[in-house]
């Protein structure tokens, strides 16, 4: 016995879309009707949306802009057969995370923007430790600047929302992306 803690054998059960290692700030928000009907995964990036007739802090899917990310998905497998089942879309609320979190999530772009939109074979995104991440055009964590790649007039997207801690590896982290959020 060497006395060294075997951290590598932690066996974290990743049963949710977002697994939290270090917590930061949370903001309860209202979701818009498109999110209520379309649903979302845990870790979904969101951006503020204004409703002129309502004094409510409301969000919708991020298009590359920042507001935060939603901690819990609208209908995760872990919420089935419990009181939390579809609670968020029914009551039109969610919990938005901001600040420096350390999380492990499945909500990231698996494939490059070009291969997802080009119709050819899907090309995996390469995640590198320390690399800065943005939100994609649908609000997933990605290393690519999809505003530039899509010819969006707002390009370049310099809204960096996180850094890669550990890339997704099936044998180590069940293909989850581990990251530190920044904004």
């Amino acid at each position, binding site marked *: 016995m060497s006395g060294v803690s075997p951290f590598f054998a932690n066996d974290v059960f990743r049963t949710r879309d977002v697994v939290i290692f270090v917590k*930061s700030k949370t*903001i309860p928000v209202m979701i818009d009707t498109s999110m209520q009907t379309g649903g979302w995964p845990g870790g979904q990036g969101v951006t503020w949306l204004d409703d002129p007739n*309502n004094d*409510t802090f409301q969000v919708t899917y991020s298009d590359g802009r920042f507001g935060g990310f939603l901690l819990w998905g609208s209908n995760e497998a872990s919420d089935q057969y419990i009181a939390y089942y579809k609670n968020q879309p029914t*009551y039109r609320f969610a919990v938005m995370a901001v600040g420096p979190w350390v999380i492990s999530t499945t909500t990231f772009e698996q494939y490059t923007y070009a291969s997802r939109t080009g119709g050819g074979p899907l090309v995996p995104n390469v995640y590198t430790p320390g690399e800065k991440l943005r939100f994609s055009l649908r609000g997933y964590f990605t290393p690519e600047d999809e505003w530039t790649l899509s010819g969006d007039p707002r390009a370049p997207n310099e809204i960096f929302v996180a850094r890669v801690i550990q890339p997704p590896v099936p044998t180590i982290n069940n293909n989850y992306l581990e990251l530190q959020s920044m904004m």
Partner: protein
Amino acid sequence: MPFPPPTGTFKIDFGGIDLIRSRDCVVFVKGETFEVSVDPAMLASGWPGGQGVRWVNSSTDNFTVTYSDGRFGGYLIWGSLESADQYTAMTGQQLVYGNAVMVAGRGLISTSSYERYTYASRLGGPPFVPLVYTASTPLFFSLRGLWTIEDELSLSGSPLAPALQAGVVAQVPKDVNEFFLGVQTTL
């Protein structure tokens, strides 16, 4: 009623919150707070709640702030002489003791301390051109420390440019929120 209820038929009525905005800065999610000393300029002229401030050197061993000139330190949560403080123990308290409470870090506020008009039109005189706030737009401190969507350090040709982004528009000023600006603070 079937479960889940049909979309739009059953929800928390956030619209009926009826928040009374009786202060310059209404806090929804709190950031980190610091007790700071304010410099003579601020003591002489006062400030509104939500005023942006920056650090300034002091001859004493006190952490001291003054009006922001576009640079970031934080914002003051309470004004020096707000109407809600009249006839209470807080009346003039900060000015008398030379202290204030500064907030930094992530939070969510609603404030009346923001620039109404563009920097160019304020500088050039009437007519004043209203700033158009839209959700999710970056926010900075203006040259007098109010929240604005313009980078006034760059617009004024300051060598301190560009300004640091201090927040994001979470809610635009409108009739139903008494024309307060919703700010997600990010620094």
